[in-house]
């Protein structure tokens, strides 16, 4: 079974936001951004812009009829700057003009006066000044402080990870239309239609029912359109609401990169202790999250870092503390993994540090400490149906861990200017929104009188194949061909109060709701069949569109049954509500059962470093992954392969760089590099682990969106391994990404520049 959308994708017929035919009278919007990262907004002069050709309006905070506030978790983010500016690229005003070119030309005519204030870009500096988005959180189990005395070995260190630009190839945008009811209808490229709706209603000062948000599909999201699609939707809506004309706002690439937040960089301190058997006894970690200038999703991202601070390992004594630090950068946001990768990177650094000091391969420490059935996480949920050891051992066996390791050593003995490196990366990732109330959704299923089926859910299709999976669930539950099923756009008037498509949970939540709705319809139809055709209800089923009674074809099929039910006034529509059962979490004590289940897996990575040039290739990434009972291997394999390579990008070439003034230096595709086809590992094997899946996973097929990203972390440690094979004495900091620059400088630490004189920092 293939993903359904690609049939249209390859023909260029899939419609994305900018492909929607424009209505006559449409005004094009362009955003005037703060040119400074921090300051007091003294004045804004847009007189010349208003007089420019084609310009219809220039909107500022003063034009907002409702409340100038779009903060999701914390109300700390104005839609348009008011009084202060807090980051470079912060929206200050909105120009509306007859053409896109005119709108952009007018931006250059706006003058702004800002009294500069000190700029912070470093989270530790922010922390030292008490600049926190929310109070710090600590997850604690056992007593790590008391445990150090019992440790045979204790290691400490610092780990740093960089940000990551989402770089969805389709940039952010929205197209809003005024409605006759005095509200707006809009098409938005968002993962969270309800968030766009709620904040827009708030900004416009109208009820949520006056704002309709519709999403067909996204050209990539990866978390970047979870909360951060909201400003563009709300701005377009504001324009349409005020001018009573359609308003289209699409960010160009560089504006998108400047104005939107990214994956959070973290700077972290770790301390890890082992007993004589090299079992981890205690782990303490402090995370300094670079949140940017407003909360956005940072508190939730920070929380997931704490949930995943011990990755796939059992640690009896854990103290994990996280600070969400306010800096003058665009608010950082969700990105595939949502803080989990950052947490895992630190404990993997701690293990690598310990192994290096002990003179052992890291994988010996890792294997010894994997989670087992019933082990408690720091948040007191137990590892149930735990496949951590199974994943590791299967990967080791299927891909010959010992052989891979030996091959690396042999290569390194015979090669001087090329070195190979090897690393193992186990993962354990919890599935569910950690904010329990978000784990709910609805599916609205219509069976039309001709037997065709239309399904609306809260799921947004962004390449993850969720629509295909939902269609499969419906086809399977109803017993009909998938060709009868259409998945409708995601629309707030059909399915209300939805959670964003995020947390890897979209297929589970919306699939379950669809399954419930379809099961109810099936039941109703079969009850009708039993009456209409005097059949025994027990043993009735629909299979391949044929009604079977105790396995024998009855005198009716899907089309006839539906038609007959319609004429007998049987309801052919069902709206089902699904809320993941048994979830609870108390954030005041940081304990509970926040996850429906965990996903496990293990990846083996081998790399080759060119020690002359500092360049490298990922030779092989071999993954044993816990899919449960996959019902769409093409889609699931695509998620694993794509997620892993995206993770490799984060750990290698993707380097988000700001200067001290908070200006983004990696501001376009020529200065921010993501993997191309040659950067993908030469070999990428995915082994489907034989696991039963989980009853809370849709058709026991486990969530696949985020977990694979973290396999990419293995590449960092494999590169480190190779560098150490060349230059054993290097005191290598734990600092990702491992760019070719960092590799070369690590290989030749003694090299000192001949002249610093010309080294003028330019930007």
């Amino acid at each position, binding site marked *: 079974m293939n*993903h359904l*959308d*690609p*049939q*249209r994708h*390859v*023909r*260029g017929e*899939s*419609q994305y936001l900018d*492909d929607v035919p424009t209505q006559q009278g449409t005004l094009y919007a362009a955003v005037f951004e703060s040119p400074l990262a921090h300051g007091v907004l003294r004045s804004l002069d847009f007189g010349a812009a208003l007089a420019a050709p084609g310009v219809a309006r220039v909107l500022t905070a003063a034009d907002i009829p409702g409340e100038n506030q779009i903060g999701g978790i914390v109300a700390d983010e104005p839609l348009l700057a008011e009084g202060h500016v807090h980051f470079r690229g912060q929206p200050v005003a909105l120009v509306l003009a007859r053409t896109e070119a005119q709108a952009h*030309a007018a931006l250059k005519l706006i003058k702004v006066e800002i009294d500069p204030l000190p700029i912070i870009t470093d989270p530790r500096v922010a922390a030292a000044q008490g600049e926190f988005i929310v109070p710090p959180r600590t997850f604690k189990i056992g007593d790590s402080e008391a445990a150090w005395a019992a440790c045979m070995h204790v290691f400490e260190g610092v780990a740093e990870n960089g940000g990551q630009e989402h770089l*969805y*190839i*389709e*940039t952010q945008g929205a197209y809003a239309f005024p409605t006759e009811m005095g509200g707006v209808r809009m098409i938005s490229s968002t993962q969270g239609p309800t968030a766009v709706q709620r904040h827009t209603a708030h900004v416009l000062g109208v009820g949520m029912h006056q704002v309709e948000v519709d999403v067909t599909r*996204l*050209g*990539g999201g990866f978390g970047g359109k979870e909360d951060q699609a909201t400003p563009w939707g709300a701005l377009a809506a504001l324009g349409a609401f005020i001018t009573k004309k359609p308003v289209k706002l699409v960010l160009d*690439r560089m504006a998108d990169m400047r104005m939107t937040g990214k994956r959070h960089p973290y700077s972290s301190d770790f301390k890890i202790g082992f007993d004589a058997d090299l079992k981890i006894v205690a782990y303490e970690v402090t995370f300094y999250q670079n949140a940017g200038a407003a909360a956005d999703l940072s508190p939730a991202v920070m929380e997931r870092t704490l949930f995943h601070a011990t990755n796939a390992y059992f640690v009896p004594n854990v103290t994990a503390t996280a600070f969400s630090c306010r800096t003058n950068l665009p608010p950082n946001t969700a990105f595939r993994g949502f803080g989990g990768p950052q947490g895992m990177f630190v404990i993997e650094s701690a293990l690598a540090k310990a192994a290096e000091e002990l003179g052992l391969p890291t994988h010996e420490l890792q294997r010894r400490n994997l989670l087992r059935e019933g082990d408690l996480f720091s948040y007191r949920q137990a590892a149930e149906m735990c496949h951590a050891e199974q994943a590791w051992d299967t990967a080791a066996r299927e891909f010959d861990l010992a052989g891979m390791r030996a091959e690396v050593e042999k290569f390194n003995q015979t090669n001087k*200017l090329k070195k190979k490196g090897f690393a193992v990366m186990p993962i354990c990732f919890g599935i569910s929104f950690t904010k329990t109330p978000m784990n709910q959704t609805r599916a609205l299923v219509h069976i039309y009188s001709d037997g065709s089926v239309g399904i609306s859910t809260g799921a947004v299709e962004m*390449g*993850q194949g969720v629509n295909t999976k939902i269609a499969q669930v419906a086809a399977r539950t109803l017993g009909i061909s998938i060709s009868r099923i259409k998945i409708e756009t995601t629309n707030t008037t059909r399915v209300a109060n939805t959670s964003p498509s995020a947390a890897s949970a979209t297929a589970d939540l919306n699939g379950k709701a669809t399954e419930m709705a379809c099961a109810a319809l099936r039941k109703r139809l079969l009850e009708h069949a039993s009456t209409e055709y005097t059949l025994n209800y027990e043993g009735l089923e629909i299979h391949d569109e044929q009604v079977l009674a105790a396995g024998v074809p009855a005198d009716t099929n899907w089309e006839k049954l539906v038609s007959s039910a319609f004429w007998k006034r049987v309801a052919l529509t069902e709206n089902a509500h699904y809320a993941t059962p048994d979830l609870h979490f108390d954030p005041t004590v940081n304990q509970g059962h926040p996850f429906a289940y965990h996903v496990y897996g293990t990846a083996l990575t081998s790399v080759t470093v060119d020690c*002359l*040039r*500092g*360049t490298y290739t990922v030779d092989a990434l071999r993954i044993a992954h816990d899919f449960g009972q996959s019902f769409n291997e*093409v889609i699931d394999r*695509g998620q694993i*392969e*794509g997620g892993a*390579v*995206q993770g490799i990008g984060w750990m290698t070439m993707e380097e988000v760089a700001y200067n001290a003034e908070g200006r983004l230096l*990696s501001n*376009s*595709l*020529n*200065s921010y590099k*993501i*993997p*191309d*086809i*040659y*950067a993908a590992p030469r070999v990428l094997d995915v082994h489907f682990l034989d696991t039963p899946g989980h009853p809370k996973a849709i058709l026991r097929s486990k969530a696949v969106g985020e977990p694979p990203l973290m396999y990419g972390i293995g590449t960092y440690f494999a590169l480190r391994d190779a560098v150490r094979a*060349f230059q054993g004495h290097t005191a290598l900091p734990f600092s990702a990404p491992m*760019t*070719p*620059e960092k590799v*070369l*400088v690590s290989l*030749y630490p003694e*090299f000192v*520049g*001949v002249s*610093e004189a*010309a*080294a003028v*920092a*330019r*930007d």
Partner: protein
Amino acid sequence: MIEFYLNDQPIRTSEAPASALLDFVRYHEQLKGTKIGCREGDCGACTVLVGELNADGQTVNYQSMTSCLTPLGNAHGKHIVTVEGINAAGSQLTPVQKAIVDEGGSQCGFCTVGFVMSLTGHSLSTQPATEKSTIAAIDGNICRCTGYKSLERAAARLTAELEQRPSENALAWLSEKQFVPGYFAEIPARLAKLKLTEATTTGAAAVTIAAAATPHANGGSVSTSSNGHAQNQNDHGHSATPPFTHPLVGGGTDLMVQRLEELREQPGVRLIFDQPGRRGIRHETTGRVVLGAATTASQLLESDLMRGLFPNLPQYLKLVSSTPIRNMGTVAGNFINGSPIGDLTILFLALGASITLLDAAGASRELALPDLYLGYKKLAKAADEQVIEISFPAPLASDFFHFEKVSKRTHLDIASVNSAAWLRVENGVIQAARVSAGGVGPVPLYLARTSAFLQGRELTPETVTAANEVMQSEISPISDVRGTSDYKRLLLRQLLWAHFLEFAPELAVDELI
């Protein structure tokens, strides 16, 4: 008036010649299959095919190009193909489309059409399809869902199918197999007719050569760079870039990046990509190799002469931008762009290249390439002068030549540092040397002192070490987004070693470890 075929439709338009083909296709013709990703040739979402009638008048040569950087005027006389122009009737898929669907090579789908067009262009190529060449055809396409392994599987399937493609009358086979619709067979005749009409009329806007060029502010004609958007390297943002007046636009791969609006509004823009007599590579009896200024990087690669002289040329050019950009960017454009890390500039500096400049009055002069560069983006060239030819002495078979480049991403990236070296060695003694380096100064550097130092010295590790000392005093790298100055110094030392180890692998590496 710009005239061309867009899919099966004739187009006559008076839109600005320096506007982007992408905008014309999407917003003028409402063909929305071609997507906008970056507008700088770095993602490939807007890839289209550009077909040019071959000299035989019977066949068309199709190349993939990023329509965001293709000046509309460069479409003149050509066949532009978007996805709408290859889609089969109904919902039938072409073999390229089917391979991608079947192998799960499309996730969010936004980049997909670009891959489809690049692979379709590859199917239309006259070169045999190999595993490598099929992958190379999509080296300019970025997929952020990072589904490259499934795309590799789709490419492998396609390669296997293309093995059946006959070398004669390939188009008929491709049409029969539904790679392209039947109307492709009529395109050569239509283009020939277009050419004929053009020859009988005057003022074909796209290729006008104005006799009186107007001075322009940055003191040089502006053209295109083969590594794209090099203006951003070591640059300070657009505010520092002087406004241009009456610019010359070649392939568009530099000027169309980020300055599109400016260029579109600019009167007097001259398109020189298709200017007659500006292509072709020949070996003269004087021993010099002469290239037309508008020779593209791809044409270097296709030249038997160049490949004969430089057997590793494919390996070098694989590091230079991507297939669609190499199809557009010209050698002279790379020189005139003046980027400190222009890959082709660095390569030709070590070859000892000169350029021939022609002024408005018709007078020409020759200039050694190193002498073109006066300072950051400052050229020793009068405003009305245009590069018409590039020449260099053909190396002897026994000479050594090598090009090195390191960037954050190995392919489709701008160098942190690049370098080229030419050596003539006899009996273990360096008779002559030319070393160049980019990314280590305000201009692409010909390392004159390092080169002179090497001359007459023995080929030993000590010589390399000592040459590095000289070289380090000859460069002045700055810290920027492509690396710190210390890194660039270290890297150039390493690349110098790389040249020598390539030439003489027996040189001890202990010096380095």
